[in-house]
């Protein structure tokens, strides 16, 4: 072996071994919201199964209003230089595919007519940026502000709330006011998938075709008040919210009614397998079917003809040591006026045979947490429309007759997150994920199944 070859092989060997060392290193270091990590000197893995997914310790910390209860929670106990701000962004390479996108026959020539084409795009990209600040304003007064930018730098307020903790000295009374994440059964804000197809639960945002319900789904942050309570270890939890019926959008864009949301759950230990949790939830809201207009244009905030809808279901989170399964069932129903897009002040406009659309859905998401530094994730989701808003056979806008399975959705996600280099001040995750979604009859022209898929690999980091 020549001297040069020996050096090269030594270098390659060192790289491989260093990689292995990083992967299997016994000294994982990680934080999810590094602002908390810096404040409390706890690793991200203390609160997160694999960040950003919470474990029960993190759930208790969150339920306590970002307090540990060891008399060092108030900001006055922190170093004056402490500034509770974190950044999260994901430089990435991703590939997006849609197998039946409507495109012009001749690009640029609208008169050439539409056809369906398999369209793929790929390249380096950037996610949005979360500027996250949260903590305590005083003992038992917590806050969170999350200005969030999309990839172009346009900001909006993803969340902003203040919370009064342990009212009357009871952990069963905590009042939150502002724009906040609903106390969802399985959080969409802290899950482990990021792609355009797999970066949200289809079920949380599903509405039937032609539906004009302005509600974006229980996965969206909402504006209102939340009363929640929990036992000392958060094995027993409840949350009820009273929310403006505006899907969390500012400036009162839709109407003057209020929605209601409730979630209760109970955890229990089963032998040495881990913590199991079961619960149920319901969201009951209203959405306008028409607006006052000015010159024919809707006036924001003047929604009228509100009609109800609801989502309800049950869920379970099951642990078998390092393997866990999150399972959820949901039943959804929208009022017939919402489902058919008919203004409630024109009841005669309802199509003959129209019905309130209903659907059932569920998902199973499984994680294998190899270590706090490596976790594998897989998810399968299915949504089945049990009752279409329009009679079966009604021609759709593309001329294809409506079928019973129109809109049925199947989604699958597979991925892993590896946290190779993390310090006590920041966290970095290498993320790879593939997601595929198939929607029955959704092809815009032919009414065939539409399939979208996403592949993403990138560095998800938080500081």
């Amino acid at each position: 072996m020549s001297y040069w070859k020996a050096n090269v092989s030594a270098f390659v060997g060192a790289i491989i071994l260093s990689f292995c060392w990083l992967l299997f290193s016994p000294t994982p270091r990680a934080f999810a919201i590094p602002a908390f990590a810096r404040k409390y000197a706890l690793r991200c893995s203390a609160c997160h199964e694999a960040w950003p997914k919470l474990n029960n310790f993190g759930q208790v910390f969150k339920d306590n209003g970002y307090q540990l209860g060891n008399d060092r929670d108030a900001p006055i106990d922190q170093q004056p230089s402490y500034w509770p701000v974190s950044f999260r962004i994901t430089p990435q390479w991703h590939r997006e595919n849609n197998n039946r996108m409507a495109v012009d026959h001749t690009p640029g020539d609208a008169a050439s007519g539409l056809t369906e084409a398999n369209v793929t795009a790929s390249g380096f990209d950037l996610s949005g940026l979360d500027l996250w600040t949260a903590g305590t304003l005083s003992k038992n007064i917590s806050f969170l502000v999350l200005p969030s930018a999309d990839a172009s730098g346009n900001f909006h307020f993803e969340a902003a709330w203040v919370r009064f903790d342990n009212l009357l000295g009871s952990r069963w009374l905590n009042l939150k006011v502002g724009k906040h994440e609903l106390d969802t059964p399985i959080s969409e804000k802290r899950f482990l998938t990021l792609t355009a197809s797999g970066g949200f639960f289809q079920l949380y945002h599903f509405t039937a075709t032609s539906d004009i319900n302005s509600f974006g789904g229980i996965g969206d942050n909402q504006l209102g008040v939340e009363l929640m309570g929990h036992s000392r270890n958060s094995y027993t939890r409840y949350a009820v919210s009273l929310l403006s019926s505006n899907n969390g959008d500012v400036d009162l864009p839709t109407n003057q009614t209020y929605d209601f949301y409730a979630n209760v759950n109970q955890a229990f230990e089963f032998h040495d397998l881990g913590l199991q949790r079961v619960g149920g939830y319901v969201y009951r809201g209203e959405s306008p079917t028409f607006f006052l207009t000015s010159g024919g244009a809707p006036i924001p905030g003047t929604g009228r003809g509100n009609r109800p809808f609801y989502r309800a279901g049950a869920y379970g989170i099951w642990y078998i040591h390092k393997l866990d399964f999150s399972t959820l069932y949901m039943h959804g129903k929208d009022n017939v006026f919402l489902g058919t897009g008919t203004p409630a002040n024109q009841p005669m406009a309802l199509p003959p045979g129209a019905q309130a659309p209903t659907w059932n859905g569920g998902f199973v998401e499984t994680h294998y947490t190899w270590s706090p530094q490596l976790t594998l994730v897989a998810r399968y989701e299915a949504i089945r429309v049990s009752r279409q808003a329009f009679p079966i056979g009604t021609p759709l806008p593309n001329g294809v007759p409506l079928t019973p399975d129109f809109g049925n959705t199947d989604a699958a996600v597979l991925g892993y997150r590896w946290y190779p280099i993390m310090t006590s001040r920041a966290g970095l995750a290498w993320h790879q994920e593939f997601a595929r979604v198939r929607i029955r009859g959704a092809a815009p022209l032919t009414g065939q199944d539409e399939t979208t898929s996403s592949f993403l690999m990138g560095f998800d980091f938080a500081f």
Partner: protein
Amino acid sequence: MWTERSIEHEKASRARVGRLRPQAFRLPVLAILAAILPATLPSAVCFAQQTRIGNVTGSLKRGKELYRRYCVGCHGVLGNGQGENAPYLDPRPRDFTAGVFKCRSTDTGHIPTDMDLYETLGRGLHASAMPSWFPLTRQQRIDLIAYVKTFSPRFHEEKPEPVVPVPPEPPASPESLNRGLEIFKKMECAKCHGLSGRGDGPSASTLTDSKDRPIVPYDFTTGERFKCGQTNQDLYRIFMTGLDGTPMPSYLKDLKPDQAWDLVHYLRTLQMNYENSANNGAVKTSPARQPGRSIRNALRAVSGSK
């Protein structure tokens, strides 16, 4: 046993290695060592006695994984309290390798029982960075204790005994408070804790822990909870067993149980927040509720008599 053939084989191997430039293998060897050593060090001390609380037995394997998830940032991979956060913490994280623990039910100088560690883990350490790990499952906490015990050979060599008994608490009375005050003076508690219990005694500024780091005495006037609990039984236990690793000694040989209870009753009167804390949810459910009332009644009687 080395045979002729194996010796020859070894010589030949060395000759082959010798022909390579040193730079050719130094880096991989170092990398291998770097990869293997950290993994082997903790496992080298995994020989501690079985950990069992009630009908639950701790698992070393799971405990090691949990330790790396929850504890390593402060206590370090080797359990020596040298985690990455240690320089920023006051008080510093516990050095498990020394096998010295503050919160025990055993006499001073002895290792704690499994239950002592279990309770400390679930309770957390007040006014420190150590939170309550009560949100972990019972099994997880016991697994963690099983692993923490592997850091010190003391858990293999010694037994957690003798356990200091805590007799039933007698009711507080004006007389017991006065006796407690006399004991407070006689035992020279004020040297560290100050006459009013503010932790400002003449020796306070000179105190150091077993690692020679400055340590401050407990300030009774601001505290509602102690490092090792919040009930009267906990307070009794603290000064009868001492807080090992700190200047707080054990008074087991100096005080009789009745005297110790008198001192507990007196020390509670130094806690301005005690009445409030006795009214909060945490204390309401504790066994100390009734004695707490009796102390307040006694205190009112003392105040009224003055």
